[in-house]
C-alpha cells in the first residue's frame, strides 16, 4: 500500500498552506479505508488483469478445442530456429520482470534516476522481445504461413490460432512498452510516483505470466 493518500479525495490529501490556501469542501469528509486494502489504481489494474486473463483463457481454450478436434494438426516448429528463439524470448521477458521489480523498489526508495534507468532497461527488453517475435513472424510468413494458409498441408486454422494468440500477446507487450515510456517520462519530470510504477509493474508481470502459458501450449506442444 504505497499510496495511502489514494483512499482520500485528491483535495483532501493536499496540504493547506498559508492564509490564501484554497478551502476544499471535501476536506472534512470521512473516507472509509478500502476493504481490500488496495490503492484504487491497484484495484483497477487487478480487475483489468482478471478480465484480460479470462480473455486469454478463452482464446487458449479455443485453440485447444481446435487442436483436439483436428486429427492432422501440424507440428511445424523445429528446435532451431523456432523453439530456441521462443526460449530466448521467454528468458528476455522473465528478465524484464526482474528489471521492473528493481524499478519499483527504486521508486519506493525515492531514487528517481535509478527508477528511470531501470524502467528504460525494461523497455529495451520489451522491445527485444517484440523484435524477436516479429522476426519469427516474418520468417513464417516467408515460408507461406498465413491466418488461413498452412504450407504443410495440415489444417489451415493453425495459422489463425498461432497469429491471433501470439499477436494478442504481442499487442499487450507493445502496449506495456508504451505505458512504461509514459511512466518513465512522468517519473523523470516528477509527475508520477512509486504508486504509478507499481501499478504498471503489475500489468507488466501479467504480460509475463500470460507468456508462461503461451510458450508451452503454442510452441512446445507444436514442436517437431
Amino acid at each position: 500500500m504505497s499510496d495511502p493518500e489514494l483512499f482520500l479525495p485528491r483535495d483532501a490529501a493536499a496540504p493547506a498552506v498559508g492564509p490564501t490556501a484554497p478551502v476544499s469542501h471535501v476536506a472534512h469528509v470521512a473516507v472509509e479505508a478500502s476493504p481490500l486494502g488496495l490503492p484504487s489504481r491497484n484495484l483497477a489494474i487487478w480487475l483489468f488483469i482478471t478480465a484480460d486473463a479470462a480473455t486469454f483463457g478463452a482464446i487458449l481454450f479455443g485453440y485447444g478445442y481446435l487442436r483436439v478436434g483436428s486429427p492432422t494438426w501440424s507440428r511445424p516448429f523445429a528446435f532451431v530456429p523456432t523453439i530456441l528463439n521462443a526460449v530466448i524470448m521467454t528468458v528476455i521477458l522473465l528478465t524484464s520482470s526482474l528489471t521492473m521489480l528493481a524499478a519499483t523498489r527504486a521508486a519506493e526508495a525515492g531514487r528517481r534516476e535509478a527508477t528511470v534507468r531501470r524502467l528504460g532497461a525494461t523497455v529495451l527488453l520489451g522491445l527485444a522481445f517484440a523484435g524477436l517475435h516479429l522476426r519469427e513472424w516474418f520468417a513464417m510468413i516467408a515460408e507461406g504461413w498465413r491466418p488461413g494458409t498452412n504450407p504443410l498441408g495440415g489444417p489451415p486454422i493453425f495459422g489463425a490460432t498461432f497469429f491471433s494468440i501470439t499477436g494478442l500477446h504481442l499487442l499487450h507487450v507493445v502496449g506495456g512498452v508504451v505505458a512504461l515510456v509514459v511512466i518513465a517520462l512522468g517519473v523523470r519530470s516528477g509527475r508520477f510516483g512509486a504508486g504509478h510504477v507499481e501499478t504498471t509493474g503489475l500489468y507488466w508481470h501479467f504480460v509475463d505470466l500470460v507468456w508462461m502459458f503461451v510458450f508451452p501450449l503454442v510452441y512446445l506442444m507444436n514442436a517437431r
Partner: protein
Amino acid sequence: MAPAGTAHRHRLPAYVGVWLALVLIVGIEVQVTYARLPARLLLPVLLGLAVIEALLALLYFMHLRYERPLVFWSVISTLLFVLLMMNQFWADARRLLALHR
C-alpha cells in the same frame, strides 16, 4: 498469505532466486518436450509446470502473497471459476475428432 499491513517487499536477491526458478522451469519444459512423451501426457505436464510458474509470478512478482487474503480470493477464485466453466467444450472437441476419423 501474510496478514495485511506487514512489510511486503523482498530484497532483490530474493527476486533473482524466483527468476532463476522460473528459468529452470523453462529448461525443464523444453527437456520434457524432447523426451517425446505422447501428447496426452505432455499436455498435463507442461500445464502443471506453467501453473507453478504462474503461481510464483503471482505470489512474488505481483506480491499477491502479501496482500489481504480477500484480494487473493476475490481475484483468483473468480478467474478459476471462469476457466473451469470453459472445460465443458472438451466433449464437443472429441465429437469433432470422431467425425474426422
